[in-house]
């Protein structure tokens, strides 16, 4: 039950994009088309899940026993960077069109603060293994949800009569702000 609460909280309440404002770069960069947004979301979810597992293992089995917690940041970066490289190679091999569509944002997952944030938050909150995994999956799905919603809105926005100075990034940021505002409606639903 507690895991379910954590899962829903990671998706809706403590949404990485709309609550923590982490990972805004791909959120704005790849949210122009629905299908590439979905793929980006799935790629991030995958990286987040594996990152949660790996960083939990490194943190619990290496960093804490040897009392070298200050290596958290650098070792997590190592995990994330390697994983993203792996995902990039995999996508390039399996789906070149997707590789093209994600473009520069795929290697940019490496420096995506959402993933770093996930690893650090999970470590700070002393999550157990399953909690960390659920937190990782939930956060990934939360990111996917946010970016897919955003892409859906932006596809409609292309047809809308947007004032000239607000076209492009301006209106996207306003929409993101309104979405974040809407998501605050979920806050307080679950107390963790």
């Amino acid at each position, binding site marked *: 039950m507690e895991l379910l609460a954590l899962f829903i909280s990671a998706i809706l309440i403590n949404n990485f994009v709309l609550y923590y404002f982490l990972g805004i770069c791909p959120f704005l960069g790849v949210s122009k088309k629905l299908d590439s947004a979905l793929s980006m979301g799935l790629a991030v979810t995958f990286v987040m899940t594996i990152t949660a597992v790996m960083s939990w293992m490194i943190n619990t089995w290496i960093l804490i026993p040897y009392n070298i917690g200050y290596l958290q940041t650098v070792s997590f970066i190592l995990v994330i960077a390697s994983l993203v*490289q792996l995902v990039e190679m995999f996508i390039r091999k399996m789906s070149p069109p997707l590789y093209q569509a994600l473009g520069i944002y795929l290697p940019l997952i490496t420096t995506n603060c959402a993933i770093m944030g996930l690893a650090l938050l999970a470590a700070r909150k002393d999550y157990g293994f399953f909690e960390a995994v659920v937190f990782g999956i939930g956060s990934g799905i939360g990111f996917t949800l946010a970016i897919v919603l955003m892409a859906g809105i932006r596809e409609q926005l292309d047809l809308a009569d947007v004032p000239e100075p607000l076209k492009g990034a301006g209106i996207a940021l306003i929409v993101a702000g309104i979405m974040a505002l809407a998501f605050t409606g979920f806050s307080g639903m679950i107390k963790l």
Partner: protein
Amino acid sequence: MSFLIPVLTMAVLSLLFSTGLVVAYKKLKVEEDPKIEAVNEALPQANCGACGFSGCRAFAEAVVKGKADSNGCPVGGNDVAAEVADILGVSAGTVLKRVARLHCRGTKEAAASRGLYLGVTTCAASHLIGGNKQCSYGCMGYGDCVLACQFNAIEMGEDGLPVVFEENCTACGKCVDACPRNLYELLPIEQNIFVYCRSLDGPKVSRKLCKNACIACGICARACPEQIFMENNLAVIHDYKKIDPEKIPAIEKCPTNAIGRFKIEKIDMNDEKEAARDEG
């Protein structure tokens, strides 16, 4: 020895991950068509986007896949087209060389000034307040096109109008975008008859504003009624190739020299540049 543990930890972790990546790289390696790299190397690497792709590399991929023609690079011209065609094993078509042409002859002497402009010296800024000439269609002469040109093909002339050097012009279209009054057009180099005016003002107005404006008298249209038409107080050439050369003298009777053949003394840009450098 307390530093050993963190150092070893990081070393072991790095080793593990890099080994993993090496294995993954071997397994997931993508075989790329070596032609793409070869074509890419033959291209000028200006990454100007004149071919319609996002850069030379993207164009190379498109050419190899057959989505673009081997002569699609206007910057490289015939030489590059031949090289690319050679790599692909197909015959090259010839590139129709185009150059940017300015549709204005409103020199400092010819066009009436609107007053002293002391604002930001760019055409874009000047255009916002209506420009420095009374003619609201003509060249303002602050050289946004000169700045936009990556190939040293445009220089500001002494008469206040930019000069395009045919040899350097690659028809990349940067000047077309840079000109706030849309005075440039990319035209085939062999086209030798143009309308040197974009003014849509009526004859009475344009006659007052500029000595070289098209005053819509229609002399040229009467000389060649098949290919030259008057639209919105401006002569328009439909197809220069179909203009009978014998009619050209009659067309050039234009009282304001607003239509005619391209005449420009060729200046060797490089010599001039070198001379300037030597003096500096």
